[in-house]
């Protein structure tokens, strides 16, 4: 293949000062008149916070919406599992918060690897999200006077996190789901549950629909529209064991990448510090314990290597509260990347606790002494119960044991300021895009971003796009749909025909081990190169030796997973390649070769202040990497300090 023409990645950021960019965009955006909106169809894939809020908002405006999800109901999307909260720059606590401060915390938290304009807009719309969700009747925590409560989250020195017990994601999602179902009732949204998107269809270079498999009948179906929104979440399941749901997957974004959408910063993955450690081999997922626990829990390990005493028998002066020691001003509430890395470090030193020395204590004894058990119970009861249930240990009596686990992916499909990918008409929202969190996401910012994209950004930017293309008929009879459908059928038949000797899950397990060991919390040149070679050979073996059971035209979970794992094998390699080219440490991406003497991530701003956007060039070809420079006009990237 000849060298492809380089793409100029135009982020389409409006002119003018940072504070006015979003207003400028809204003032200049083209509009579609209310009576014309129903002539436009938007296909929305995914019904998590971003997808459900986008679908509902567009339908409220009058657009015709087709909404697809893989679960039996839109309400099951994995946003539902988010526990701790959602940030907003309301300054209800009178503690100095502002749009600027939320913007700055987010940029800094992301280790200066995100776009100023996008993040500023996120902070600007954050307050409207809380207004809207409160109006939806979401039972946020309240003060006795009836006003909204806040709690603190990592990486911030103000209290700006709104929450509904430990089930904030659930409540926000049910709010968006309710809004979506109201539009279903009004006939503006048609719901297609149990559909898995397997390809994107482009006509004359524009996204015009998707091909999906009906997960009950196995039928391959076509969904056409004037634009497509992908809100299909992140790709932490590449690691096999993660905090994600078992059906969370990367297939939709990966297949769009193969259709020409660029994939940005795939190596930016977040390993969450407070998860319940792995207990055995047959385990299917890891369970997160909300970051909010670090408000009251103290993280420690014994000072002595290999100290086997039960925690209660280790005296105070023989404990190392290492986060409080290393980061006196943020203490236990340092950002996730730092907390995870330090946990790994103390375990690598042989000071970890529990089976295999692969965990650290999160201790509530002081908080219980100070506040009493009822207060702790009122704050965290469901989390403590969940922990007790899983580990058979009572965290009111003994410290929790926690260890980091893959949780969130900051990387995703490249999008411009309009949230449009490099394929015109393909918009990407929520965790599926790369836009706002740079190299590390702060706690309580994922819910904020998903809902910002869906409720308050896409309704404007999609209108602008649709007004530009006109409402001409979109037919799913177009030959492009035939081609995509044929490709999907061939893929499915090919996997079923291999009839090899290793199960889909075995391959997933093997890939997860490579990713965790070599593309996980710390990475180096040699390990990454080995990972690429190992993944390639695993991928070849998958093609020759996978065993997929059952039939095509049936409810067939094994077949669903086979397609997903096949895509993970491609994406895992791309993650390793991206990690290899980024010879600096930043946020969750830690290269052993690039650390400060204190062991903090050492950025190389001269060489790596860019977004790495990867372009697919065909099977067996190396992808090429395009750079979008990140000019910082208002903030000055500095060595992140939480000391």
């Amino acid at each position, binding site marked *: 293949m000849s060298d492809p023409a380089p793409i100029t990645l135009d982020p389409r950021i409006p002119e003018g000062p940072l504070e006015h960019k979003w207003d400028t965009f809204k003032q200049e955006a083209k509009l579609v008149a209310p009576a014309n909106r129903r002539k436009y169809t938007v296909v929305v894939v995914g019904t998590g916070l971003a997808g459900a809020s986008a679908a509902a908002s567009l339908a409220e405006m009058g657009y015709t919406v087709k909404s697809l999800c893989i679960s*039996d*109901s839109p*309400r099951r999307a994995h946003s539902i599992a988010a526990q701790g909260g959602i940030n907003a720059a309301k300054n209800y606590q009178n503690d100095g918060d502002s749009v600027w401060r939320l913007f700055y915390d987010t940029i800094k938290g992301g280790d200066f690897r995100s776009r100023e304009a996008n993040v500023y807009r996120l902070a600007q719309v954050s307050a409207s999200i809380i207004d809207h*969700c409160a109006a939806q009747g979401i*039972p946020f925590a309240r003060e006795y*006077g009836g006003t909204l409560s806040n709690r603190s989250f990592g990486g911030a020195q103000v209290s700006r996190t709104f929450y*509904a017990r430990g089930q904030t994601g659930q409540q926000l999602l049910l709010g968006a789901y309710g809004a979506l179902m109201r539009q279903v009732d009004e006939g503006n949204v048609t719901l297609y549950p149990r559909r898995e998107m397997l390809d994107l269809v482009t006509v004359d270079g524009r996204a015009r629909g998707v091909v999906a498999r009906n997960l009950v009948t196995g039928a391959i179906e076509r969904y056409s529209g004037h634009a497509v929104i992908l809100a299909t979440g992140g790709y932490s399941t590449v690691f096999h064991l993660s905090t994600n749901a078992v059906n969370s997957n990367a297939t939709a974004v990966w297949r769009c990448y193969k259709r020409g959408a660029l994939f940005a910063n795939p190596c930016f993955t977040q390993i969450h510090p407070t998860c319940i450690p792995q207990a055995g081999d047959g*385990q299917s997922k890891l*369970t997160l314990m909300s970051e909010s626990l670090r408000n009251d829990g103290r993280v420690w390990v014994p000072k002595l290597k290999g100290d086997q005493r039960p925690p209660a028998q280790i005296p105070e002066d023989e404990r190392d509260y290492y986060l409080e020691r290393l980061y006196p001003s943020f203490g236990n509430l340092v950002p996730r990347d730092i907390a995870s890395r330090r946990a790994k470090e103390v375990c690598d030193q042989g000071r970890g606790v529990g089976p295999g020395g692969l965990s650290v204590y999160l201790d509530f004894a002081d908080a219980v002494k100070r506040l009493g058990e009822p207060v702790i119970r009122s704050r965290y009861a469901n989390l403590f119960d*969940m922990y007790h249930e899983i580990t058979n240990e009572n965290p009111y009596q003994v410290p929790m044991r926690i260890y980091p686990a893959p949780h969130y992916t900051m990387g995703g499909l490249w999008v411009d300021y309009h949230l449009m990918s490099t394929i015109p008409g393909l918009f990407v929202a929520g965790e599926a895009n790369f836009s706002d969190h740079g190299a590390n996401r702060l706690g309580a910012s994922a819910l904020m971003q998903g809902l910002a994209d869906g409720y308050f950004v896409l309704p404007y930017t999609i209108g602008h796009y649709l007004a530009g293309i006109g409402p001409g008929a979109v037919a799913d009879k177009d030959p492009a749909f035939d081609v995509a459908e044929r490709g999907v059928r061939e893929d499915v038949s090919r996997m079923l025909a291999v009839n090899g000797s290793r199960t889909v899950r075995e391959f997933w397990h093997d890939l997860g081990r490579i990713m965790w060991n070599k593309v996980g919390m710390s990475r180096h040149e040699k390990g990454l190169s080995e990972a690429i070679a190992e993944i390639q050979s695993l991928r070849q073996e998958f093609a020759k030796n996978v065993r997929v059971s059952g039939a095509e035209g049936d409810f067939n979970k094994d077949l669903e997973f086979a397609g997903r794992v096949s895509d993970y094998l491609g994406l895992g390699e791309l993650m390793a390649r991206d990690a290899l080219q980024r010879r600096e440490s930043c946020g969750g991406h830690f290269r052993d070769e690039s650390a400060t003497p204190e062991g903090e991530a050492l950025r190389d701003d001269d060489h790596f202040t860019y977004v790495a956007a990867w372009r697919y060039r065909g099977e067996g070809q190396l992808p090429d990497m395009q750079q979008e420079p990140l000019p910082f006009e208002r903030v000055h990237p500095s060595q992140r300090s939480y000391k």
Partner: protein
Amino acid sequence: MTTNGHTYTLKVWRQPGADRPGRLATYTVTGISPDLSLLEALDVLNEDLIRKGEDPIAFESDCREGICGQCGIVVNGVAHGSKLGCTTCEIRMREFAPGSTITLEPFRATAFPIIKDLVINRSAFDRIIARGGYVSINTGAAPEANAIPVARDLAEKAMDAAACIGCGACVAACPNASASLFVGAKVSQLAVMPQGHAERERRVTRMVAQMDAEGFGNCSNHGECEAVCPKEIPIHVISRMRREYIRASVKSVLG
């Protein structure tokens, strides 16, 4: 850890499709660690079946931490098993005596047709929510969030009801296959929150009508729903739904 695990007998409902006959099939699983969840034990069994060229057991789950509501199996005769306040995915194998037999059947109700094996169709719940399980407010129309104060205990009460995960265990456990706990939970949340007041009559009337239309039975106060609810939604949400319904009926007559 799995090498010295335990052995269990699983009796599992197998049914190829809604209109095909089903039966209980018996399997043995070995090497099961007490820390595994019941669904992970099913994963282990399915791996075995796949290796042997047999059709794996179709069952559903997603979050595997008790919040998405996707899983739902009748375990030894009880929806989500006999342990209180947990979903099927939260059941650990340490709950069962080593060597014991565990029977797994789908949630059964006319309104929840079986798709395959343990997988059912619960879309009736979505259609009920579509008739009013929300506050009708468009994006962009909201007042300042603190403009409407909500007393703390009311917000807590609303949250107790809002915790519903839509799993359908209440229906599976009810001798009448009533969906009253599910509908009552949403009606209660929005009847308690002041934001829901503008359309409370319309909401309860439409949701109850849809519940009836879907073929769910009536509530006759058995209380089985509350007993199996993994989120321990209190049964008084049903009384509140009735009060709301009567209030709406009286209002429609008296104006």
